[in-house]
């Protein structure tokens, strides 16, 4: 546990180049400083929240994540991971309140990818019909994953957290991250291409 009291007097050697940890410590005294953390991490959290929960909810999720983080900043422990993992952990909890909405969103993507393969010209230049179909299969597969497996898979694939960081974010063991990830990937591959998981992708340009 960081003893926030010391932040009262430990100014920065360079006033602005504060590490996230220092920003959090010093925000115990100057709450407004926590805004720096927002500016540093908002874009990646927003993108992740939007991908998972969609418009209208992602904005609330991001705001709530930072406000929860702010309220809990005294308990932030840099030994247990960096601020980014901590924030993604809070965001994941917030997203979990909207898991039905997420599933609906994924199923909608799955449906649209199956029905619109032939008539999306802009997209076709970039993505082959096969890959487009794979996208739909993936969305459907993600919707069927357990929440825990989906959290791990998407945290690692979409937020760029390492296994260790994902473990810190979700407050689970790294071994659990590995086993959930393996299970999630196995299911996704099965949905995408059966025994040959790379078939769909390698057929695309």
């Amino acid at each position, binding site marked *: 546990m960081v*003893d*926030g*009291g*010391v*932040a*009262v*007097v*430990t*100014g*920065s*050697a*360079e*006033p*602005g*180049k504060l590490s996230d940890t220092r920003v959090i410590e010093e*925000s*115990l*005294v100057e*709450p*407004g400083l926590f*805004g*720096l953390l*927002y*500016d*540093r991490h*908002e*874009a990646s959290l*927003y*993108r992740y929240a939007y*991908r998972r929960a969609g*418009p209208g909810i*992602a*904005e609330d999720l*991001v*705001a709530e994540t*930072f*406000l929860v983080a*702010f*309220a*809990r900043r*005294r308990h932030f422990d*840099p*030994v247990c991971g960096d601020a980014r993992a901590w924030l993604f952990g809070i965001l994941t909890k917030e997203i979990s309140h909207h898991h039905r909405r997420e599933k609906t*969103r994924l199923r909608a*993507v799955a449906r649209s990818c199956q029905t619109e393969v032939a008539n999306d010209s802009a997209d076709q230049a970039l*993505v082959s019909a096969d*890959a487009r179909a794979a*996208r739909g299969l*993936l969305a459907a597969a*993600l919707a069927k994953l357990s929440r825990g497996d989906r959290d791990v*898979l998407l945290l690692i*694939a*979409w937020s760029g957290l390492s296994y260790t960081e994902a473990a810190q974010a979700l407050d689970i063991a790294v071994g659990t991250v590995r086993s959930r990830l393996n299970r999630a*990937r196995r299911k996704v*591959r099965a949905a*995408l291409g059966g025994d040959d*998981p*790379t078939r769909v*992708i*390698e057929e695309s340009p």
Partner: protein
Amino acid sequence: MNDQWILDDLGSVLDPPTEHAPAEVRQRVLAGLTTDRSRRITWSIQPVWRVAAVGGLASLVLAGLVVISAVRIGDHGPAATAEAAEILHAAADAARQAPAGAPRSDQFVFIESEVWYPAAGERSGSGLMRSWRSVDGTRDGLVWTEIPNPDGRNQTAIPGCQNGRAPVWGEQGTLREDQTRACQPDPAYLPDLPTTARDMLSYLETAAAEGQDADSRAFAGAGRLLITHYLTADTRAAVYEAVALIPGVTAVRDVSDAMGRSGVAVVREGQGVRYDMLFDPSTHQFLGWQLGASADHSSLGAQQTRRQAILRIAVVDAPGQVP
């Protein structure tokens, strides 16, 4: 791993139309940062840290303030107003006349201040704080507060950072010998700071964190230097003169500091936050630094969130030594 490719592809389909969340989200978060939902904050300030009742205390603090409009100076855009610049140049002149040489690296910077927090609960007011920080950041320092923490403790060690490692805190605000963490030295004195206004301004702008505009960074950085570091006479003067070059800096008369001393303030508002740099109107000495939500921050109204009056800054040989 090829499923990463297809996951990226799906992700790009689900991406938001814009890179950033709408500005309202940022405003909502920043507004939330001026009220503290975590009751227990930090041992040194917890008893008095409460949210100011909107309008009540804030309006008292801000009552009767006159803000002077900006004027253009030279080719550098609208710098500080003439009145703000006058306050800052007088402070710089006074700073140059006060003897303040460089400390030795094995000494400690002693800062005595009165820290005030908004109060809406059972406790209110302010408390004395004394800190002893290592000049070069490698030695263990100390912070003492008049108001004890919930455990009845008044002081806590500040771990020095030696060879990239610092001891961690134990239960009673002491340092553990058996456990260290990674660290960077946090010197209370920076020997290589610029001594001219222009160079100091560049330093304050570039040394500051990302995410705010350069002017806000420079102003906030100046305030932080003033309340947390020991500055030599010419460096202190350079800080004041650098602030005079920052656009949007205005003067506000009749502001009181955390000790109740009346002063003149050099003020900058931006992004929902207002910073005040206070000076004694007759001696031109730096009195303190305070911040709050700016008046134009609609959802909350003007609100002071922290005020720190600097009473003494000195160099001593050991932590705990009072000059």
